[in-house]
């Protein structure tokens, strides 16, 4: 109990404190405070023109298309290229599509085990590269959104923003994290797998590789794709509790800082404070719930002579302590990271509901940049309803919200349940899904539900019992990830583009304040009602049904 409290306080509290200066730096960076760097970036890109929301969106899409094309080619040709000491062969086209889509969209859903599928070159120049640039894409999009809301005439220049995010934010922190991880035991070598003979004389082949560099950016950019199959439960990815703390820190720090960055760029730090409060409150509720639910011993061991005094241990690593597995589960799914510090498939049913809820809401800090963008959509809905309730035609920071904005916001918000529930329905009712399950009954349903939730939320974690490296799974989740990524980025930019064109009205005591507790409560309620009403039936048939069955 005490250890849990200390751990949560250290990770969440510490990251919240550190996010403040980082957010301040990011806001300064994206406001062009570092002119020399910007000049250099303009020279590198050969472009520094101001872009409106359309041009910015097109630039973003074109660069992401280049990302997709390059990595798709690299993964397809890995067996012909160097840096392949373990001789990885060609992968199937649908796995290549899925993997590329997964990393381009910052999802890092992995339908493979890295150590037995990809060459070091594919992992580094393909996947790790995407972990940098896809994260940078999200941060850039947030910067553009903030500029629009702040009332700047243009949204900035995507190519400059991307470099600012990649070179000035992600790269330096990744370096620090990578070096700390390497020192604490995460391998960093280009040698192939190690051959050893065990004490009992058996042969064991131990996969290794340039993991430290990879793991650092995977956490920092809310990517989450593991270098090794079981992700951050693998001892090489997460060798000590201290490494574990550094990684959890890395997962959540930039999403938190993005809120402050947004607040500073729009000149409304107290508004950001309210948003941060809502996100933090939801996160803490989820953390408390998952830790509490996971403290219950595994029901599978109940009738056996097994001493269970430390909660559910299936799928957990002893060196990481009793708290970090569930804590990590809450953090990684709240931030759209998707790396796992314990096997989510083996969580107690209600504990397993928490990560799903995190992905359904997808904005309790959320992915780098995009978490705040998702929150923007909820803010639009919240201020719309709240605005009417204070007797005014609704507006956000003086921008009137009318049919067009609402249409766009609703489009983006609906896409999430459509992708998740639609996909789940299709796979739950057909052999595409049913034949790939590791567990039967309600838990099997949860596996399908989780997979689509993770894809649509660009999270990437999984109930990994699912045999998901099949053509239907690879194609379907690949498409879901692409829609789930670009719609919620481009639509808010369009909304802001539309808001920017309107006469801005001044705020007064009669306008709805977007600061303080009242607004926070309204936003919280909006998120909860929206999420609960949409996903409650599915939750009832998955984790809740499993739980109540277990209880009997």
């Amino acid at each position, binding site marked *: 109990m005490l250890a849990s409290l200390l751990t949560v306080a250290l990770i969440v509290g510490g990251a919240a404190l550190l996010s403040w200066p980082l957010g301040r730096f990011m806001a300064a960076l994206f406001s062009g405070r570092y002119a020399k760097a910007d000049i250099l970036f303009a020279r590198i890109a050969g472009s520094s023109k101001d872009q409106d929301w359309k041009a910015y969106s097109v630039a973003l899409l074109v660069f992401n298309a280049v990302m997709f094309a390059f990595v798709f080619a690299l993964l397809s040709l890995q067996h012909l290229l160097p840096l392949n000491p373990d001789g990885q062969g060609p992968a199937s086209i649908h796995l290549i599509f899925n993997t590329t889509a997964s990393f381009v969209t910052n999802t890092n859903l992995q339908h493979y085990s890295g150590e037995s599928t990809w060459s070091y070159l594919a992992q580094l120049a393909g996947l790790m590269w995407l972990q940098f640039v896809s994260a940078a894409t999200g941060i850039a999009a947030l910067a553009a959104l903030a500029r629009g809301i702040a009332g700047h005439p243009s949204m900035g220049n995507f190519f400059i923003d991307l470099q600012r995010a990649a070179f000035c934010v992600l790269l330096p922190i990744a370096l620090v994290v990578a070096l700390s991880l390497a020192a604490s035991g995460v391998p960093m070598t280009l040698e192939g797998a190690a051959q050893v003979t065990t004490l009992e004389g058996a042969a064991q082949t131990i996969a290794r590789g340039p993991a430290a560099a990879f793991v650092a950016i995977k956490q920092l950019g809310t990517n989450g794709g593991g270098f090794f199959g079981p992700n951050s439960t693998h001892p090489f990815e997460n060798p000590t509790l201290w490494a574990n703390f550094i990684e959890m820190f890395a997962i959540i720090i930039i999403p938190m800082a993005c809120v402050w960055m947004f607040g500073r760029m729009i000149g409304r730090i107290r508004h950001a404070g309210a948003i941060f409060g809502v996100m933090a409150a939801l996160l803490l509720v989820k953390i408390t719930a998952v830790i509490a639910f996971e403290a219950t011993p595994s029901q599978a061991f109940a009738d056996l002579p097994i001493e269970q005094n430390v909660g559910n241990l299936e799928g957990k690593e002893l060196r990481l302590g009793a708290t970090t597995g569930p804590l990590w589960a809450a953090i990684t799914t709240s931030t759209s990271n998707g790396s796992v510090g314990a096997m989510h498939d083996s969580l107690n049913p209600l504990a397993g509901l928490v990560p799903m809820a995190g992905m359904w809401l997808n904005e309790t800090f959320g992915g780098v940049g995009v978490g705040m963008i998702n929150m923007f959509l909820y803010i639009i809905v919240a201020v719309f309803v709240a605005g009417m309730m204070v007797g005014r035609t609704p507006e956000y920071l003086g921008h009137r919200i009318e049919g067009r904005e609402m249409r766009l916001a609703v489009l983006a918000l609906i896409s999430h349940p459509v992708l998740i529930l639609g996909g789940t329905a299709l796979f739950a009712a057909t052999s595409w899904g049913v034949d790939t399950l590791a567990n039967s009954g309600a838990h099997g349903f949860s596996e399908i539900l989780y997979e689509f939730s993770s894809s649509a939320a660009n999270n990437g974690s999984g109930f990994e019992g699912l045999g998901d490296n099949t053509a239907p799974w690879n194609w379907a989740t690949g498409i879901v990830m692409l829609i789930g990524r670009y719609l919620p980025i481009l639509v808010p930019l369009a909304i802001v583009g539309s808001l920017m064109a309107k006469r801005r009205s001044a705020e007064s005591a009669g306008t709805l304040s977007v600061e303080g507790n009242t607004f926070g409560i309204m936003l919280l309620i909006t998120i909860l009602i929206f999420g609960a009403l949409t*996903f409650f039936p599915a939750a009832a048939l998955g984790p*809740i*049904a499993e739980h109540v069955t277990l209880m009997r």
Partner: protein
Amino acid sequence: MERASLFERKLVVPALRDSFVKLDPRTLVRNPVMFTTAVVAAVATVVMVRNLAIGSGDPLFEGQLVFWLWLTVLFGNFAEALAEGRGKAQAQSLRSTKDQLVAYRLLQNGSVEEIPATQLHAGDVVRVIQGQLIPADGEVIAGVASVNEAAITGESAPVIREAGGDRSAVTAGTMVIADQIDIKVTAEPGSGFLDRMIALVEGASRQKTPNEIALTVLLTGLTLIFLIAVGTLPAFAAYAGGEIAVPVLIALFVALIPTTISGLLSAIGIAGMDRLIRFNVLAKSGRAVEAAGDISTLLLDKTGTITIGDRQASEFVPLPGVALGDLVAAARLSSLADTTPEGRSIVALAGDGDAMPEGAEPIAFTSQTRVSGLMIGERALIKGAVDAVLRRLGDKADPTAAAALRQASEGIARSGGTPLAVADGNRLLGVVHLKDIVKAGIRERFAELRRMGIRTVMITGDNPLTAASITAESGVDDFLAEATPEDKLALIRKEQAGGKLVAMCGDGTNDAPALAQSDVGVAMNTGTQAAREAGNMVDLDSDPTKLIEIIGIGKQLLMTRGALTTFSIANDVAKYFAILPAIFVVLYPSLGVLNVMGLATPSSAILSAIIFNAIIIPLLVPLALKGVAYRPMPAASQLLRNLGIYGLGGVVAPFIGIKLIDIAVAGLGLA
């Protein structure tokens, strides 16, 4: 205007009939949520009939379900029809007035022809004599007449209409009760004030406001989300090895989609306009009513709004060396012929004195001289603005006395009063202190507005000194002194550039540009046609203080919409807990624990939820029509209050309601 009470028989019966008329899909489709409800109700009906034919299913249960589904749609229609009906009754009487109108058109050759009013065109000139109804909107171009406008305003006191000036506009349907006037028609047939009013009160020309459109989008979005949430359930059930009957799915879907707010949405809008009409204010569009709620700057004319219309004499200030009695007597004499309230107040303050001397001639006030008074033979007793009096006396005035006069008058001006100089011949006697009387309670009103985030600006022709002092006394936030119509327009533009929404009222033709520029421009009905065209509201009582109430009505309209939206969505929590266990208990029996309300059977649970969903619409009709209680307070407290009542209430109420209905349904053996 006479207004019918909420559920009067003569309103309810036609509304019931209209509920069925409105089932026409072409009408329904304007409201996507209700349209969807009707479509799925139709599907449920077909399924029920098919099940009856093949003898499967539970006919009693399905029959009731279908019944309540249709009732949901009908209740929504009823709410709208009832709201419209209240206007329609009034429109009926207006229309009958209009149909009787006959015009006497003046022809080029000077003769008069009698034609139906509907054939009049803009530019025609008609003559209206005593006892006739004015056939069309227009401007008086010749004559003066006393006109009874009760048909429009409900106010039976006649008003004067005359050519030129700010009282030249006349409205079709009003009656000339004395004299005769020639009117130049300004409105084309069908677009006159009366026509517009008929359309407005009927709600026929009602366009959705931008806010209603946005809300409809949100509600449609929610409907789509629930379509997905419910539409995927059969597949989920198939995974669990069960199935869910189509009528049950439809019941769940209809219970979840925001039928409550959708059914009441147009009723709320119509009722908002209606509240304004009852308040004797005509809004030309729903948009104007909503804009009223957004007002952040309020321009108020000093006279009649902040101060009671007339200034009152409060003190006589003699110049040094002048006996007070001399001043009082002279002031009194000079005011004897003055019938303005100011003049009368001077006489009253002076007390008893001589009657009007024989042969005295009044000196009339003209805009050139700006003095008035009395000629008694060669002796001219005058009073007027200090400058005007000094100008009239010219160098005949004693310079020392003139300086003293200025000094005295400045003192009065500084204290907010208006100084009126009095002279007997060439001798300056002193000044009368005319005081603006600030209306009782106005200070509290301004404080209230300030709490609502509304800045008040007083518009006055007074000098800055006087204006500042009234500002201090009345608590108004700011003032625009010596205001010309151009200043007013410039002020509005400046405020708007700063993101403010501005409301004002005006009556004169020179107010028209400012009225048009402001976000809410309330034209006085006594004003000119130009002013009435320029504003987006017309105040039939011509009472400028009403601006404050108009803002309240606008806010109330939006709050009602927001509150019922919140209520509607919050209801879904309980409905989930009623219906989902009923459906899922077949798939996973242990999910029965979700039946927290302890509803009798799955069928009764579903039925109860759908019954609650239907009857909540008529239950909320009074709230939709009257509007939620509105008290001026800061936005944050307003939000918390409404969240508590309609959010929390919306979560709790259906738990109780559904449970009660379930007890009844189970008790009656309906399911």
